[in-house]
């Protein structure tokens, strides 16, 4: 699944930009002055070992955590002053499961569609389309708790796209799912990207890193490398992203 896009990322507008973005907790600096930008429609891989600061950075960009210093804008809105405007324009799927286990598929869709302000008819249309795309029509009234993990993840991803956000943030979306479902999941990601949605994704699977247009690797709160997977492999004289990652992340591990 190599990307065949011919548009050079740099010619597109930036939808996420950060400058010296920093998060300090009482004892340590979780995110240390990171600066980068993500272009519209790009699949941006955000890599790093556990505790490198990926989730903290992502929480600042989604308005869940206020930054200590630095600048950041998401979808054209400032993370300090316009956090609520950002929320209308982004989707988010966390590594912790985000749908309600005790609601049915249809009820989850209705709820999330409702709080994003979609009209009743839009919600009904979207529910039908979503279930059809995922081939889950028969499970419309099944409780989420009764579904296998792979289905849940695909569903959570689709629900986070309901309100047609400009950017979607995915925090380790494929953790714990089987290789086939992961492949299907990435097909969904490509589909979204082809429709112009910017995808910001963290992962621990290096084969998934290969699917990204560009990849940044965080080590100890800093971005140590940022390039296309091919560029990174050339720079570090590695044959796989796995080698690149281990070379960079080892000192901290």
């Amino acid at each position, binding site marked *: 699944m190599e990307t065949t896009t011919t548009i050079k990322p740099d010619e597109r507008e930036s939808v996420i930009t950060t400058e010296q973005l920093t998060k300090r907790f009482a004892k340590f600096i979780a995110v240390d002055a990171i600066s980068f930008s993500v272009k519209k429609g790009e699949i941006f891989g955000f890599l790093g070992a556990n505790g490198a600061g990926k989730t903290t950075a992502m929480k600042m960009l989604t308005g*869940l*955590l206020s930054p200590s210093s630095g600048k950041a804008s998401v979808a054209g809105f400032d993370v300090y002053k316009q956090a609520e405007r950002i*929320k*209308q324009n982004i989707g988010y799927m966390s590594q912790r499961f985000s749908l*309600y286990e005790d609601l049915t598929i249809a*009820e989850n869709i*209705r*709820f999330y569609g409702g*709080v994003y*302000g979609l009209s009743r008819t839009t919600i009904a249309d979207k529910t039908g389309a979503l279930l059809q795309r995922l081939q889950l029509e028969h499970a419309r009234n099944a409780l989420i708790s009764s579904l296998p993990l792979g289905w849940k993840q695909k569903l959570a991803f689709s629900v986070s796209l309901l309100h047609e956000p400009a950017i979607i943030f995915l925090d380790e979306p494929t953790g714990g799912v089987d290789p086939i479902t992961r492949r299907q999941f990435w097909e969904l990601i490509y589909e979204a990207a082809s429709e112009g949605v910017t995808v910001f994704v963290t992962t621990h699977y290096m084969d998934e890193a290969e699917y990204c247009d560009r990849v940044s690797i965080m080590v100890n709160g800093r971005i140590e490398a940022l390039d296309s997977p091919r560029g990174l492999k050339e720079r570090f004289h590695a044959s796989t992203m796995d080698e690149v990652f281990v070379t960079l992340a080892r000192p901290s591990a």
Partner: protein
Amino acid sequence: MRTIAYLLQKEFVQIFRNKQMLPIIFGLPIVQLLVLIHAATFEVKTVPTHIVDGDKSGASRHLVERFVSTGYFTVVQFSESMKLGEEDIKRRKATMVLVIPPGFEKDLLTRGAAKVNIILNALDGGIAGIAQSYAAMIIAGYSQEIQTEIMSIAPPSAQTQAAASGNTMLAVRNSFWYNPELNYKHFMLPGILVLLVSLVGLFLSSMNIVKEKEVGTIEQLNVTPIKKYQFIIGKLVPFWMIAMFELAFGLTLGKLIFNTPIVGNVGIIFLSATVYMIVVLGLGLFVSTVTETQQQAMFIAWFIMIIFVLMSGLFTPIESMPPWAQVVTLFNPVAYFIEIIRRVLLKGATFGDIERQWWSLVAYAVVIIMIAVRRYRKVSD
């Protein structure tokens, strides 16, 4: 407004889909009213009594007879030794020892006065106090009866002595207002209703909000454009409604089963409950902001509840607490609502009568909601 409607819809679906919820909503009031109301009574039915009759005279037998005939005292042992009596208390066989010393009848007849000794196990001060007052009443009745007899049969010297000692009889007759039969069930029911709505409000609301944290869905909600106030209304209104239903249900049960008097205006009770539930739910929201798991929330809620209930005047009158504790009860919303509901139900208090308590609850509601709302944050630091 639409967002709140979607939040409420989701909450109600979840609440009523929870299999434990309906038994809690309907079972809790029934169990509390039917069981707790009988347990939470201060009537002391039978005091196990050891009787040491050192006199074995007509007068002493007459006195013992009076004790037994009231039905409040059951004789576990007759003896002639104080030692045996004390042992029974130590071995918890008896709660009270009635000691009639030798020469009881003789003293009565010659001096017009005699001593009896009552020893009580005061480990449970409540029972001891009540047993003591029963005993005092019986002895007073006996002495009054005997006094009349002495007056008529005793030699003049004894008569003058009795008169000289100022032993003129004062008959005290009590009349109990507002609860003439001293029916503890009528007294306890309003308080237990308060306990019921407080439990429902505090536990269900705090655990419900913390559950979103525990399973991680709160993060998903926080990245949506849901506003803070919408979230809070969406979370608290369902439990407010459930608590109001519980109150109505409990009052109905009380009326049907115990024929609890409803002297005052029920509207005042519901008006007060409206504000009181805002206080309780605000506390629930506060608890959810300081905890991360349902277990922690339950522990903190339980801790708050125990203190509020024990210091509310539900089981022990506030008037008999030490002054510092009475000051503490001024900060206890449970105490205010219990006072309101008791006074309205049993005394028929008007709004004017309970206005001070009502405004205290309003002030409490404003403060607690402000604190809880400030603490609940969509964006963390």
